[in-house]
């Protein structure tokens, strides 16, 4: 082999190596801006989200394409557990999504640098008084540093229980309205060989829903104030909340092994397959009340021949007996953000504007029953929704959606991930009996105080 050829090979290899090294460096720490405008009524946009489900997204896209046939929207649903890991690198490259879903709260702050401010878009679509026309909860949770990072499609609210009315009827039982009644109902269900209440207590979000629902019965607003740092976590109202939470385990309301359960899929599957009569879920569960949604959910729970049952929301029992009203609390389910690196920003704006501010689009959102629409004055058209047991479901669902849409208390908005972890730790310690309510509350206060240092 002559020297010239050897030298040439070295140069080629060195060149390849330099490319590989550059790629490695880029992969380890890419940042930067970019993107282009394109046209407002044509082009292709990629929309990524962990929600809604693909069939719901396709319903939105089909309706959108009736108005804007030249804009192609490709929806990619990423499972919630992989969402953060998938989105972060994608947003740092030009091949990521044009439009992406954003969770309210701390995530908004994290992703704000990758999203355009949508305030001008909202003003253009709804006018200067746009804030009066959409749900405040959708604005608060999706704004960071006065920048509207994403526009809310709709909101979800928690604080309610959902029941399988067929199981209540089968056992001849009434819905529990107090803690003692709840304990008794669970004893009766067990005696009848039916599971009573199921919760995936290994997941913080759902534990927090139950805790906040209890706290609303103890002292309305106490939980929200603690979340905002306006009262300590070892306040007597929170300690009492923890005491009642612990009683759910010691008095046999929670199913055995609850803290080893995940709400999804474990608890949801058990409830949907008819093993349990009650579950703590929020307004997103409304989508399973119609026959089509329910059949799909029961099939997904592993039941071969799904039979619909009357799925009904009920108030969280008055677990203190003090007569405080049942509290509901929520956040924007998700907002749509426009990526700064989008290569078709104009078309992406058209899609975001249409889905979040157009009355027809928001009516479709309302009718899918997954979200309470962001636009005020829009509610589900119950005449067009087929319920399998309208006599048992219709009034309850109408009242429920009407009530929760009035809620103003936040669900996760004021809590960062470390605080949510501390709540889970307290909840599990209480469930296991390794801490008293006062100890758990004190420990939580210490943790949160340390985080703020």
């Amino acid at each position: 082999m002559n020297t010239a050829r050897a030298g040439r090979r070295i140069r080629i290899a060195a060149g390849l190596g330099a490319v590989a090294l550059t790629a490695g460096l880029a992969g380890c720490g890419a940042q930067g801006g970019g993107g282009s405008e394109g046209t407002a009524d044509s082009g292709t946009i990629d929309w990524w989200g962990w929600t809604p489900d693909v069939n719901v997204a396709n319903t939105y896209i089909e309706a959108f394409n009736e108005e804007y046939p030249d804009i192609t929207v490709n929806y990619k649903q990423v499972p919630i557990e992989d969402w953060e890991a998938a989105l972060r690198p994608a947003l740092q490259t030009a091949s990521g999504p044009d439009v992406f879903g954003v969770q309210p709260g701390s995530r908004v702050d994290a992703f704000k640098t990758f999203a355009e401010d949508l305030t001008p878009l909202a003003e253009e679509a709804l006018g200067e008084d746009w804030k009066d026309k959409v749900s405040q909860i959708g604005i608060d949770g999706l704004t960071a540093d006065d920048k509207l990072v994403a526009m809310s499609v709709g909101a979800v609210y928690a604080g309610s229980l959902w029941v399988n009315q067929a199981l209540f009827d089968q056992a001849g039982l009434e819905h529990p309205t107090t803690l003692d009644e709840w304990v008794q109902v669970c004893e009766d269900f067990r005696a009848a060989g039916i599971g009573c209440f199921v919760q995936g207590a290994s997941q913080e979000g759902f534990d927090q829903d139950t805790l906040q629902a209890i706290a609303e019965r103890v002292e309305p607003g106490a939980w929200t104030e603690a979340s905002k740092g306006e009262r300590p976590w070892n306040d007597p109202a929170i300690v009492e909340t923890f005491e009642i939470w612990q009683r759910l385990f010691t008095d046999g309301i929670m199913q055995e092994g609850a803290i080893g359960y995940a709400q999804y899929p474990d608890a949801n599957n058990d409830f949907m397959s008819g093993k349990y009569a009650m579950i703590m879920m929020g307004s997103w569960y409304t989508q399973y009340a119609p026959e089509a949604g329910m059949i799909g959910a029961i099939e997904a729970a592993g039941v071969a021949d799904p039979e619909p049952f009357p799925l009904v929301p009920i108030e969280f029992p008055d677990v203190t007996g003090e007569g405080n009203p049942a509290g509901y609390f929520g956040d924007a389910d998700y907002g749509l953000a426009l990526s700064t690196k989008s290569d078709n920003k104009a078309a992406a704006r058209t899609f975001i504007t249409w889905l979040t501010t157009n009355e027809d689009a928001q009516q479709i959102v309302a009718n899918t029953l997954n979200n309470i629409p962001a636009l005020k004055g829009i509610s589900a058209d119950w005449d067009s929704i087929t319920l399998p047991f309208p006599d048992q479901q219709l009034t309850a669902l109408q009242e429920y959606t009407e009530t929760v849409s009035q809620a103003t208390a936040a669900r996760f908005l004021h809590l960062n991930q470390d605080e949510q972890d501390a709540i889970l730790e307290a909840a599990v310690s209480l469930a296991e009996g390794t801490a008293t309510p006062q100890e758990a509350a004190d420990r939580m206060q210490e943790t949160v105080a340390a985080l703020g240092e």
Partner: protein
Amino acid sequence: MVATEPRSARTLAASPGTNAPSTGPRKRERRALQPHGLPWILPGLVLSIGVLYFCIGYTAVISTWEWDGLSPTPEFVGGRNYAQMFRDPVFWGAIRNTILFFVITFTVQTALGMLFAVLLHSRVKLGVVYKVIIFIPVVLAPAIMAPVFRQFFSADGLFNGILEFFGLGAITQPWLAQSSTALWVLMAITVWQWTGLTFVLYYAAMGQIDNSIIEAARIDGAGNLRVIWSIIWPGVRGTTVALAMLGAIGALKTFDWPWLVTVAGPNHATEFLGTIIYRQTIPNYDVGYGAAVSVVLLVLALVMAIILQIRGRERAR
């Protein structure tokens, strides 16, 4: 292959009774060959340095930052992430879990692996079937088996059903939902999965032991246990050291089973360094802290490997 030529030349030179070439021309030949080999290894070299070692170094740099993984302006905080980590009881709980996990799983896997290897080296009927059955768990992905084990060990799961069937209903409990039992369930699952590999390696190692030594021992009156203890066990020491090293590093890297089966709970009872790194880096956006734990994990893995290697060599002498 070009790269083997110098080695061949050395071998020839060292062999008695061969006409070894003189030193001068051999050196010239090696120098002439160097440029030919370098281009072949350069891409791999650059890749390993550029991707692997660079990213390890970059992780060490990140560990000195307060960073959410997205912000273009991370804040330099020096050793604060490390200080926070050493004060964090969850970190020390993960270290305790790792040590206990390694000791128990390695001991049980070694005992079972040896047992199966010894049994299958004797002439058992359907030996191939047994080997396949023992080895199958090794190739099953945790992601596939995790839901099965979640169901199997749940409060109303099959395991409690089996206990009740055998009249042991008094000891049934929600195995995965208690801090006191969840880690033991994960250790049992790990033993179930990796005993097959231990068995295969011991089985192969035992095949290398000279049969005449065992026969001589038997003539001298050694029983089965004596043969295992005095001949087979020392004969497979290298395998045991390798398995210990793999087990220790595996314990440090444990992530899939605790995350998929218990999500590192309840109450951090099944927390490992890997689960801390993932939780802090991905859901909690504390990339700097996650990187600090990653660096500690790397250091511990290296130290563990070095210690086991040295101990193995000392014993071999």
